[in-house]
Structure formats: C-alpha cells, structure tokens
C-alpha cells in the first residue's frame, strides 16, 4: 500500500533564531524535500537610503555603519570612495593604507562570523562559533583602539580616516597577524577534515557557474562556483593594485566550497595587511580642512563605486544636485542580490539543509533590507 502524501506549506521565520536576522521563508515541502521556496523580506527596513537624502555627506557615514553591521568598515569604505569620486577628492596616502588595513581586518571578522554561524546551523551547537567569535573579538578590540567603537565604527572620512592609529596599534596588529594563521589552521583541522561536515555540505545546494553569472552573484559565492571575480583584482580601488594576493577558487559550488573559500580568503587578508603595513609611510591621514571641508558641496553629477565587500560587490550610487546632501543614494547590497538564487539553490534539497545553505550565502539582513 502506498501512502498518499500532500505538499505542505510552512512559514519559517521571521523570528526563527537561525534565520540570520528577521527573514521569512514560505516553504512548500513534499515529504522532506523542498518543492518550492519563497523568500520574504523587508522586516528590517529602516529606510537608510532615504535617510541619507536628509543628511550631509559627512553624516551619512554613520548610516552606512548600520547597513551591514557585521562589516561596517567595508560599508564605510564603499560610501567614502563614492563621495571621493563625486567630489574629486584626492585621498591622503596614509589614510588609504589605514583604511585598507581596517577593511581587511573587517573582512576577517566578517568571514569568521559567516563560518561560525554556518557551522552553528550544521548543529555543532556553539563550539566552533565560540572559537570564531574569539578571533573576531580580537579584531573588534583593535577597532576599539582605532576608532573607539567595535561595531558602529564611523572610522573613515572623505579623503582618509579621521585620526591616525594610536601607537599601541601596530604591535597589537602584528601579534594578531602572527597568531591568526595558527588559529585558522586549528579551526580547519577541527572542521575541514570532519566527516560529518563533509557529509552535510558536499554536493548540497550546488550553484552552477552559468546561473551564478546570470544572477550577477559576487564575492565568495561566485568564487566558490569557480569564477575568478574579485573587484580588488579586476577593478582595483584604493591601493589594491599595489598589493599582491591570491584569489582562492573552488569549482564545486556547493556549501562546502563556500565555506572553504571564506576560510582561505582570511589567510589572504593576512598577507594583504602585512603588505599594507610595510608600504605605509608617515604623513597626514586626511586632507586639510581647506581642501575637504566638513560641509561638502559636490558638483552636480553622479558617481557609482563598487568595492569587494565581505559578501560581494558592495556599491554606492550617489547623485548630487549641488546641495549639501545627496539627492539620491542607492546601495547595491551584495547580500540582497546573492539571495535571489535561493530558490534555484534549494529546490530538491532536504529540510535539514535549508538553514545550512541559507547560512552559506552569508547574508546580513541589515544590508538586505537597508
């Protein structure tokens, strides 16, 4: 006798603890397989883009902190680069090096969060998450040294950074960078060889390179599908053309590949930071107030700048009408665009893999909804 089964539609979220923020799925299950999935978002919409139209260019930095609150330095950087392009500001070299260091540190912190939570979703209940968070903590402590805040940094200013790093910063950075490879090795020996993780992540939620390109995915997502697309290399901003680094690629396109690419990218961040520290020269960290006043009035026009954020191409589009605040500000949020392929990724997988695959996208609801 065969049992008759019917598809069941279930709402997951918006308050489920492992949905990485307030996010809701409407999933249709056929038995244990996912037959259809519809992402519903907008629960964290704060209207940051609209708020930016009411603030002066210098004040908008504080809003960008709160977009992707796991990698606020990178949001700062993207916005500041857009302002610099809009106003034609020539940044101070030392400020650029410092903000590259800050950005790469932030990438380490953000990938640590991604990896930690991915494994939390796999059911490792906290242990690797605490290890990953411990490393992130050291980065946040360094941010506190640099700019007095851990999450909402507001460290960057048009033309550089607001203040030079304190004297204690470099030794701390140095000891962190020498300790980090061992910590990553340890985390890898803990996880990368683990049979349970292999079984749960290999071959799950595979993204073919063609559809990844079609959906304009970016960041670790597309590099895990084997496409060598990294804006730091393709379209260098700041001084990324003066540092050399490898771009880890994985061809499988499954959850394991996405985890692996992030893991390897953190090692590359270390080499980038080391090169930045070496090439950094003393000097002012931002142009004088005569060149870059507090109240910027860019000429009429628009500017789009994209950087390689921790989650993908993070772009800011600013339109100026000649006034003191942007006429329009639009953010190309990588998490949001990486989310569009959720359906293709997940149809046909099992219920238990849903949150793991969702975590492997590494999205941040603050950025998706803005």
């Amino acid at each position, binding site marked *: 006798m065969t049992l008759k089964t019917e598809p069941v539609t279930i709402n997951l979220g918006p308050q489920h603890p492992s949905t990485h923020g307030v996010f809701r799925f409407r999933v249709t299950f056929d038995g244990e397989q996912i037959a259809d999935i519809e992402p519903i978002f907008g629960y964290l919409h704060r209207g940051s883009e609209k708020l930016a139209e009411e*603030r002066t260019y*210098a*004040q908008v*930095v*504080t*809003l960008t*902190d709160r977009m992707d609150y796991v990698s606020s330095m990178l949001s700062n950087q993207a916005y500041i680069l857009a302002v610099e392009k809009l106003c034609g500001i020539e940044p101070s070299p030392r400020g650029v090096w410092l903000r590259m260091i800050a950005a790469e540190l932030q990438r380490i912190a953000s990938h640590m969060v991604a990896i930690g939570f991915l494994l939390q979703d796999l059911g490792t209940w906290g*242990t690797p998450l605490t*290890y990953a968070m*411990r490393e992130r*903590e050291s980065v946040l*402590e360094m941010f*506190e*040294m*640099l*700019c*007095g*805040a851990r999450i*909402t940094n*507001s460290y960057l200013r048009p033309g550089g950074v*607001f*203040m*030079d790093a*304190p*004297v204690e910063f*470099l030794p701390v950075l140095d000891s962190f960078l020498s300790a980090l490879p061992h910590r990553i090795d*340890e*985390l890898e*020996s*803990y*996880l990368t*060889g*683990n*049979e*349970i993780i*292999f079984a749960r992540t290999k071959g799950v939620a595979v993204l073919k390179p063609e559809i990844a390109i079609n959906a304009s995915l970016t960041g670790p997502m597309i590099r895990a599908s084997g496409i060598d697309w990294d804006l730091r290399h393709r379209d260098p901003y700041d001084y990324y053309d003066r540092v050399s680094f490898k771009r880890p690629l994985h061809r499988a396109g499954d959850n394991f590949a996405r985890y692996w690419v992030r893991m390897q990218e953190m090692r590359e961040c270390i080499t980038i930071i080391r090169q930045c520290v070496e090439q*950094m020269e*003393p*000097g*002012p960290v931002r142009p004088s107030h005569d060149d870059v006043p*507090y109240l910027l009035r860019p000429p009429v026009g628009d500017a789009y700048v994209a950087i390689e954020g921790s989650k993908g191409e993070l772009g800011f589009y600013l339109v100026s009408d000649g006034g003191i605040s942007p006429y329009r500000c639009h953010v190309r949020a990588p998490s949001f665009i990486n989310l569009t392929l959720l359906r293709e990724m997940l149809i046909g997988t099992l219920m238990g893999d849903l949150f793991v695959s969702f975590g492997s996208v590494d999205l941040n609801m603050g950025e998706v909804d803005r």
Partner: protein
Amino acid sequence: MQGQGLLKGLGVTMKNFVRPVHTVQYPDRKVGLLGAAKRAGVSPFRFFADNPREGLKALLFIATVPERVQQAPRFRGNEFTWYEDRCTGCASCAKYCPLGIIKIVTHPGGIDVQEGESYAIDVFDIDIGRCMFCGLCVEACPYDALHMGSQFERGNYVRNDLVIDIEQLRSNLKRPSSWFRPQFEERKFDPFKGETVDDHYKAGRHEQPSPDELKERWVDGRK
C-alpha cells in the same frame, strides 16, 4: 580511516579546554580567598585579619570582585565631558549631529567684547537616549569644549533621565576619551585609570602631529 577527522576535532576541543578563558564575567566575578587578596593587593592572611567577614565569604567562594575589560582610551562611552569656560555657544556640535539631539539655547553674555561677544549658555541638552555615540559633535567643536566621555554604565528606568542637561555636564566627573583629541593620546592619558581632567587648561587644544613627529613615532619608534 573513517572518524579520523572527528577525533582530530575533539583534540582541538580538548586543547581549547585548558586554554585561558576569554570570557569576562561582567560585572563581577566570584573569587576565593587568594583571588580576593590578590585584588586587594595584600597577602591572604592580612586580608583575612583585616576584614574577617569578607575573608569568610571568600573562603566559601561567594565573595565577588568587580570585573571589567580593558578599554581603549578612544572608547566612546555614553557620557560627555564639557568645559563650560571654553564653550562659546556656537552650536556647531548641534548642527553637525546627524540626529539633531543636542539642544542649545544661548543669550548674549556681554563679556569678552573685544574678542567678539561670547554667548552665555542657558540650555545644553544632549538626549543620549537617541544618541548613537558617533562622536561627530566632538569632531565639529572648533574650541575643544566638548569631548566624548569614557563611562558606559548609565542604565536607567526612565527615558527622560537619559537626557544629559547642563547641570549634569557641569558636575559630571571629567573623564574625557581621547577620541579625536590627539593631545590626550600624546601624554598617554587613560581615563580608565581613574584620572580626571578638571579644567580646560589641562585638557589642552588638539593639533594633528606634524609629519616629522609621525615619522619619529611610527618609523623610528618601531625599529
């Protein structure tokens, strides 16, 4: 071999089991007699003899000592340090605040006529219930009158109590953070050691270090 990876992982967990912990038991932590004596800076016998009550508690492991993490001098706490003598009432800080939560009311003070009349300040309210401690107001202050504070424990039950008014700003302990104030950094001022800067002469004016000084500090100092 199947299961090798799992065992390796368990090895890492065991290694971490004996490492020093990273977690801080804020706001206080239970200590035994040795810990309590160490915190008080005396020998355990002395500690017990001096206050037997505390010593007994410590012996039973129910004594507590306050526990804080090390904060950076630039930490932006949720209070402000303000030097009234130096404030001209120009309200740059209020204008620069992204949220518009600083309220300043002034009237002509009638003093300092030669230097351009300064204003007497009637109201200086900062609504820290909405403040995001971005520090832009501090950056905007042209006279170094406003500084970020360094404390962060201002928990409250009433929203209105979160508004810092001029009386509080006058009477608060002055523990400025060195955020955007290089002069504090220069002399290694650390607000977390309990130091205060009582008047604006001691606070000094901020001046970005010259490239030569920077070279000395960063390049020569590192060798």
